[in-house]
């Protein structure tokens, strides 16, 4: 393989993207138009605001509107930093947490009310307090929620329920950072935004398939085959061009969502890893594009057949998936786009560090599946798609 040949072929693809309106529309303008549409409909521009962190409160004691546990939950909600869901069973709450539907579970023990009551009755006689432990379970992949939720719980417990400025020793709460952290409100658009990156990228499948079938129809592939350029040169040319296109897409979508008010909580490292994952995901789309080109007899057929690969990724792996049932979301784990969206959600929305287990797992799955799909695409095209 010669890099000069691959680069020459890549440049040809870049020029096509810039000069052919249909190509430019599908690869760049369509995702941006959709991002703007979503941003103005659901984002800060549209004013649809909701609290940043959802937590489930499980009260193992007696339920009642005037109990300390109920007042505590109300006080948490009143902070504006948390949105509280009352869940009767710990198992249900843990399941919701494990599926990423909420960011934390607060387990109030049966003795919680008695603890608060004993503190209020005998504030200066610790020996007469009823001890209890509030258990807190948090999303491992979310650095910010791990900082914010314990802090908010601790402050609320101290000020609103116990009336003290510091945490009472009778209510031990696991807190990773004792300081108050200002919580940024997010919107529905912020929930969708990470999925828009994968959404933009998957249309590459159609473009790759159309490019190869058109070049085959026009005799261009035959013409390249009779030059000293090898299959590896041709494939590497596509890989280089679409990796760059994928990166450009990611940057443009990022600028677009940023302009619409979305503020990723990731630092520079998180942003770089996020863009890296989207870029690597382009390999997967090239692979699917090659498979599509191999089984399509014309560019028109390629457009239709590309939807076979495009739709599952679209519905199960992008922002659309966030609105699906838990079953559909479970099925989504079989499409690479799911892991792209999950990684970007962890990095950009939950504030996970780039080296967190969730992000590294997503990165590994996206990288491995993309390389495998690309290799399958190359083999299938060599066998069935060559001129």
């Amino acid at each position, binding site marked *: 393989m010669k890099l000069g040949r691959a680069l020459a072929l890549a440049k*040809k693809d870049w020029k096509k993207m810039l000069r052919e309106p249909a190509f430019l529309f599908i690869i760049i303008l369509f995702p941006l138009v959709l991002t703007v549409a979503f941003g103005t409909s659901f984002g800060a521009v549209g004013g649809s605001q909701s609290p940043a962190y959802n937590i489930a409160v499980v009260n193992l004691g007696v339920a009642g509107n005037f109990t300390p546990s109920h007042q505590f939950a109300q006080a948490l909600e009143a902070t504006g930093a948390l949105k509280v869901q009352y869940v009767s069973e710990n198992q249900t709450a843990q399941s919701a947490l494990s599926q990423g539907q909420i960011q934390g579970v607060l387990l109030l023990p049966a003795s919680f009310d008695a603890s608060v009551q004993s503190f209020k009755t005998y504030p200066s006689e610790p020996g007469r307090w009823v001890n209890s432990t509030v258990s807190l379970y948090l999303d491992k992949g979310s650095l910010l929620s791990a900082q914010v939720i314990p802090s908010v719980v601790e402050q609320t417990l101290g000020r609103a329920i116990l009336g003290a400025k510091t945490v009472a020793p009778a209510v031990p709460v696991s807190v990773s950072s004792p300081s108050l952290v200002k919580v940024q409100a997010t919107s529905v658009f912020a929930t969708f935004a990470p999925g828009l990156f994968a959404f933009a990228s998957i249309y590459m499948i159609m473009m790759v398939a159309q490019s190869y079938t058109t070049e085959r129809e026009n*005799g261009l592939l035959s013409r390249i085959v*009779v030059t000293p350029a090898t299959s590896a040169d041709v494939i590497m040319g596509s890989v280089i061009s679409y990796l760059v296109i994928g990166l450009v897409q990611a940057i443009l979508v990022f600028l677009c969502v940023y302009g619409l008010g979305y503020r990723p909580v990731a630092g520079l490292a998180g942003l770089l890893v996020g863009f890296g994952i989207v870029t690597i995901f382009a390999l997967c789309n090239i692979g699917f594009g090659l498979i599509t080109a191999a089984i399509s007899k014309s560019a028109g057929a390629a457009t239709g057949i590309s939807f076979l690969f495009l739709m599952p990724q679209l519905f199960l792996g992008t922002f659309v998936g966030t609105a699906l049932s838990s079953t559909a979301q479970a099925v989504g784990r079989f499409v690479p786009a799911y892991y792209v969206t999950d990684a970007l959600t962890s990095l950009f929305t939950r504030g996970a560090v780039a080296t967190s287990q969730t992000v590294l797992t997503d990165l590994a799955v996206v990288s491995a599946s993309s390389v495998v799909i690309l290799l399958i695409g190359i083999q299938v095209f060599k066998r069935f798609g060559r001129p």
Partner: protein
Amino acid sequence: MTSVCAIAIQNLTKDYGDTKAVDNLSLSISEAEVFGLLGPNGAGKSTTINCLTGLLKPTAGTIQVGGFDVGTEGSKVREILGVSPQETAIYSHLTGRENVRLFGALYSVPKEKLDASVDKMMEKVGLMDEADRRVGKCSGGMKRRVSIAMALVQNPRIVLLDEPTVGMDPQSRRAIWDFVMELRDEGKTIVLTTHYMEEAEELCDRVGIIDHGRLIELGSPAELKAKYGTKNLEDVFIQLTGRRIREGA
């Protein structure tokens, strides 16, 4: 003087199921020769050319190009071969210059020589003034000339031109003829297919007429005219292949 063989085809056969596109064809083309491969539609010309380039794998027989076996030394063959295919295979979103430059890069023409080679080719095919126009907006004749320039930018030893002047106006056709003569003077071996008999007469040192995949006549235009007692090559061609209209292959 002994002529050096540039292309040697031995017992070439190419089957498509029960159909023999090329049937036991043997042919030898000398270096610096302009050879015309003539035949009606579907006679096997393009199949022969595609086997020469390595695009098609022969069912039987061997082909040597520039002393290299097409089947086993394909990469070496591709280094010395310039091919202008039958269809105008060019990138319509690129300019003429960009198309030629791309193929120069594919043939690994050194960077420092590439621009000069591209300019030279654009000049030769008479497209210097239109070199920066996107070929999607050019006429059929101009596209054809760009296609020929793409085949020659690397200065190949052997050139295959599959119907190089189809769709061209007389002026453009004359320009290509002059260019082919120039290439021959430079010592290049040229194999061309054409349906224009006057073109074959004008350009070719020898022609081979094939029909139903078989070589049915071989010789210089003058020899064939003398042999069949005709004034032009077209009459020879009609005598040999008949008047029945053939479907395209």
